[in-house]
């Protein structure tokens, strides 16, 4: 259910940015969502659409790119994609890892006219 409050923050940023850029209509919002972030894309998108009803972003398309979890091993330096929450280096077996991708929750770009 936290999707609703995060979508409210998203709508504020989109509308504020559209104001700065002097857009009369927002047509598309492009988002990066890391796989570790526990957000259900459909609910998030629905909540955003509801939040921007009656604004210049009404009806804007939402494109959510899911970013897979990637880790870098602090022991051997290899970076690799994590499958099924097995946070173990697939080269040396170390569990001393740094998350390099998978926690994204970014607006990549906002399209409009």
């Amino acid at each position: 259910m936290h999707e609703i409050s995060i979508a409210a923050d998203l709508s504020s940023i989109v509308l504020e940015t559209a104001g700065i850029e002097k857009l009369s209509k927002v047509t598309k919002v492009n988002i990066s969502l890391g796989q570790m972030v526990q957000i259900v894309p459909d609910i998030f998108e629905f909540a955003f659409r509801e939040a921007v009803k009656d604004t210049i972003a009404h009806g804007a398309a939402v494109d959510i790119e899911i970013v897979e979890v990637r880790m870098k091993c602090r022991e051997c330096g290899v970076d690799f994609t994590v499958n099924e929450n097995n946070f173990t280096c697939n080269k040396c077996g170390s569990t001393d890892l740094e998350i390099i991708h998978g926690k994204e929750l970014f607006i990549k770009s906002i399209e409009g006219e």
Partner: protein
Amino acid sequence: MKNILDRNQNKANEVRDLLISKKVLMVNIISSPGAGKTTLLEHTCEELGNKFRIGVIEGDITTDRDAQRLKKYNIPIVVINTEGGCHLDSHSISKVLDSFDLDKLDILFVENVGNLICPSQFDLGETFKLAIVSTTEGDDKPAKYPMLFREAAAVLLNKIDLIPYTNFNYESFRSDLGKINSMIPLFQISCTMGDGMEEWYEWISKKMKD
């Protein structure tokens, strides 16, 4: 690229800076409903209340029942009712910090809304997150909710006295947790029976002295 959670993050950074300047440790306690957050706080206040100055922020959807349970320890407590909201955020914490005399606190426990998913996403400005899991919930929680177990500074496995009455498999739990966060300290405790509580008191006391 703009972080969607910037608004929460910026306020969390302010809270963190303030707490560091006041030398207050803030612990964000996250668990499912009924895992034992309030019971842990009751016993911790009882045991450490005369050694450290403890404050509590109680996050609940509604009611002040948890706060009522802690009243007898004569510590500053503020209740945040989220009125349906499934988590606390940094703005709600920032608003209530004024109610505490931070110069007279060593540790501020934040009992988040009972929920393993939503609270893990929101930085409150805490020093660290603490995850509590109880054996009656099953042994699959680390595998199902990796974010919390990756980010928490420690895990308390509560209700270990009830293991014989459940199908909880400790080896499986430990193995899943190890895959997600091999470094994380794990305390096996029973808040009601007292098992393992000494280790927890020792660990949290050390954190306060650090």
